[in-house]
């Protein structure tokens, strides 16, 4: 701010005129309204002479000398990040202006899907979150519609449009009935992002066993183990065989291999043999005492 020291009243008029002239040359700054990320902007200044121009914003700091009264061009690369920018113009005193840059058009989707492996026919077991970002990785806050689709092979299991709110949208879905790869796709216009969820067989269903006496005891095995939707239960799933007889109770754990679990039980007396896997109990077999 220019200061005028007026010692005498006679100089008052001169001082006032001088102050008015100085004020007319005092610097001022006019910043743009909200701009879009990646677009250049112009800041206009008033006044005369030289001044120092500062720009501070996310990812940018500028400190340059400018000529007052001329426009200051801010290149697009300085305005890539959405957020608040502070423009300062200093010549003796400083004038400031604040403006915002908002995200540009969506250019990519961040898609979080859980879980990566899910049992078939599990209610609301799959969830996803979609976030839209522009080409500079600014979060797009304007509401956008995103189409979510779950498909297995050529069959579409789920399709829904969800709308972003504060930049995020989410969904829940029930898994399909067939084991295998489930494609989960989020799309918006030409943008598309895909995730895969492995659907695995659920718990065994209708567990059935068969067996026969052998020289060493009883050989017992399951029929091919499936879940209730007919999917083969994964190898490695444990089946527990329990033998109850005069000698007491004994159990054997056997993993499923190629769809079937097998065990050898040493017993010569009468035995009742049952099988269980998880919460599912199979049929019972009764063997008489060995002659």
């Amino acid at each position, binding site marked *: 701010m220019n200061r005028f020291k007026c010692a005498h009243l006679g100089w008052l008029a001169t001082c006032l005129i001088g102050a008015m002239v100085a004020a007319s040359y005092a610097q001022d700054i006019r910043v743009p309204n909200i701009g879009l990320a990646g677009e250049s902007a112009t800041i206009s200044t008033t006044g005369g002479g030289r001044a120092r121009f500062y720009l501070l914003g996310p990812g940018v700091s500028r400190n340059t000398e400018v000529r007052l009264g001329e426009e200051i061009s801010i290149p697009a690369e300085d305005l890539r990040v959405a957020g608040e920018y502070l423009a300062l113009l200093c010549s003796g005193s400083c004038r400031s202006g604040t403006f915002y840059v908002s995200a540009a058009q969506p250019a990519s989707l961040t898609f979080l899907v859980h879980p990566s492996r899910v049992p078939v026919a599990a209610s609301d077991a799959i969830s996803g979150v979609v976030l839209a970002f522009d080409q500079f990785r600014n979060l797009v806050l304007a509401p956008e519609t995103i189409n979510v689709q779950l498909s297995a092979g050529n069959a579409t299991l789920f399709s829904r449009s969800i709308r972003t709110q504060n930049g995020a949208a*989410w969904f829940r879905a029930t898994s399909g009935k067939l084991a295998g790869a489930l494609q989960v796709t989020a799309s918006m216009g030409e943008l598309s992002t895909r995730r895969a969820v492995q659907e695995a067989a659920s718990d065994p269903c209708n567990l059935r066993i068969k067996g026969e006496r052998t020289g060493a005891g009883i050989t017992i095995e399951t029929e091919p183990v499936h879940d209730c939707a007919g999917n083969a239960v994964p190898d490695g799933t444990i089946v527990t065989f329990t033998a109850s007889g005069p000698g007491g109770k004994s159990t054997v754990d056997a993993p499923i291999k190629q769809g079937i679990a097998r065990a050898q039980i040493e017993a010569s007396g009468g035995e009742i043999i049952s099988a269980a896997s998880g919460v599912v109990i199979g049929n019972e077999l009764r063997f008489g005492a060995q002659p």
Partner: protein
Amino acid sequence: MKRRDEGTCTSIYAFLCVPRVAILLTLFLTLSGHSYSANTTTAGQLEIDATKAGPRALEALTERGILRDYRFAWASMTQALEFNTSDPLEGPFTDEAKAWLQETVASQQKAGLSQRYVNQNHKLVVVFYAPEGDLIELQDNADFQRQVLDGRNTIQEEHVVARYIVLMTPSADRWVVRQLQAVPHF
């Protein structure tokens, strides 16, 4: 105990007092690690309102963790922008937030500028908490005193009311800020 310490400091061993305090302080700061930054920050008040959190409800323990880590993030950012060093950004920030803060620090260094954020107050509202708890979105109604320095000269000082959209994700042992985007309004 206190009296005895005072006695020692006024004795001929008074010269030991300052180094001892300095040593203890250094030891404390070293041992306390990142909490030093968080506790010495000018990020004064932090409040969080999780009543709008959804679709997943925010548990009290998680809420405290987010408050703690968000406070730490601001303390670290404040240090980084004041002293023009990227070191404090390692840890509390990741992804885009870290990238643009590092750019800001580098460009401030080049331009000979720095910024101070003092007397900070943050009122956080949880607007989204992902179903699996792997992402949280906050709205931060912040106000602080911002000083802009050209070299050692303060060229601007103003009270700022700012609004931020914040994305945080859990890392191994803390929540980290992935996005910190100022907006004119919510």
